[in-house]
């Protein structure tokens, strides 16, 4: 599994993905880790199939006792079906996720890890020195959905928003936005259910100062490509399955 440090100034952001050992038919995912001294958080730690690789990859950059928190943007299997494994290897950790999913997500197996419910209006977590904000993204696509914004690094982890379906081995960052659009179009048209929710999210996110937007599938956006994405998404008609 490739690991790329995308920020390093007092605290660090890592992205893990493009796993060559991943079974062919499962969708490729990006996992993120923020390391802040003796506290670290894994964002959307992934499905059970990538657990072994993800654990080994994370431990290359952090000691196991410093893996203190997990975040799940929503309840999908590619996001958090590894929970039953993390629960056994990180019994003292806390999982941050929408209050809506607690009873559901526990089906993945959760005897030890603490569940920290995020209310619909959002929330925040302080690691050792930095604050992270949980930004509501409800109905995009899950009914209880959050993104993570780091005001210091100006990185927005955007879950399934900005996701693209790409062949294995693709670069981590968008290089040509216009070409990239076609890899994102169907995903957003079909997986995102609500134009109203989309506009609500755009209004909220446009108030943030974002240098990197990091989705859970596909490539990351940086600089002007972030604004390009927001404009493109604004114009896109979503929820096409019922039209």
């Amino acid at each position, binding site marked *: 599994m490739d690991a790329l440090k995308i920020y390093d100034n007092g605290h660090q952001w890592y992205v893990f993905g493009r796993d060559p050992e991943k079974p062919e038919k499962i969708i490729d995912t990006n996992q993120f880790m923020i390391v802040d001294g003796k506290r670290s958080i894994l964002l959307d730690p992934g499905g059970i199939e990538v*657990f*072994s690789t993800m*654990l*080994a990859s994370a431990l*290359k950059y952090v000691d*196991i006792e410093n893996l203190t928190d997990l975040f799940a943007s929503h309840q999908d299997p590619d996001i958090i079906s590894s929970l039953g494994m993390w629960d*056994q290897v990180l019994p003292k950790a806390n999982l941050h996720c929408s209050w809506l999913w607690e009873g559901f997500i526990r089906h993945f197996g959760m005897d030890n890890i603490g569940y920290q419910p995020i209310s619909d209006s959002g929330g925040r977590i302080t690691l050792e020195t930095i604050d992270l904000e949980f930004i509501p993204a409800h109905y995009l696509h899950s009914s209880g959905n959050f993104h993570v914004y780091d005001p210091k690094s100006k990185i927005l982890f955007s879950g399934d928003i900005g996701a693209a379906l790409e062949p294995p081995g693709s670069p981590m960052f968008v290089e040509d936005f216009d070409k990239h659009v076609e890899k994102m179009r169907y995903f957003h048209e079909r997986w995102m259910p609500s134009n109203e929710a989309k506009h609500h999210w755009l209004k909220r996110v446009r108030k943030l100062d974002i240098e990197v937007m990091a989705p859970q599938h596909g490539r990351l956006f940086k600089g002007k490509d972030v604004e390009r994405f927001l404009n493109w998404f604004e114009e896109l008609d979503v929820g096409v399955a019922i039209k």
Partner: protein
Amino acid sequence: MRKASSDIAIQTAAAATISGHLFRASLIAKHLALAAKNSRAMVLRAGEKAVGLKVISDYFDDLAGKTINLSTSINKRAISISRTSVRQWRTQTFLDRMDKSQSRLEGSKASQLAPSINERQHYLSSLIGTLQTELKSLQEQLADINQYMQSSSVVAVTFKLEATQTGEFQPLLEDMAKTINGHSNDIKYHITNSQKQLSQFHV
């Protein structure tokens, strides 16, 4: 002590299959109890002619009650074994994945995984110990219920022979003996299949 996850998956499916067989056996046992009560009522109606059958029908009634209780208790034990087996399966899966993680790490990073692996290994050992105890009890209970059903079949033959002396009640009582024997055989079928499934366990 550690087994392949696929073997534990087979074992978990076997535990669930046993639970299903015993649930069906407990339902048949209820029919058996009803048949025993009917035979008792019929014997009372037959009066003096069927006096020899009263002891036998009382025995049936008692046997059916015991069978219901035992099959219910065995069913609970089979569900408990199934749960323990799922825990063993999940723990084994975790350990398999930890082995893979460890093989990708070196030195102190790899050794950071050792406490979790050791703790789960102990847990796995305790689960296997629990499973061994539960399986032993299950085997004994299955043997007991099988013994009940053997007795039931034998007594049904005696019942049928005794029924020949009950005049106009003979056809009805013979039919009841046949019903009781049929239910006993059906229960035996489920018990035998449960015993076969136990061979899937190698703990």
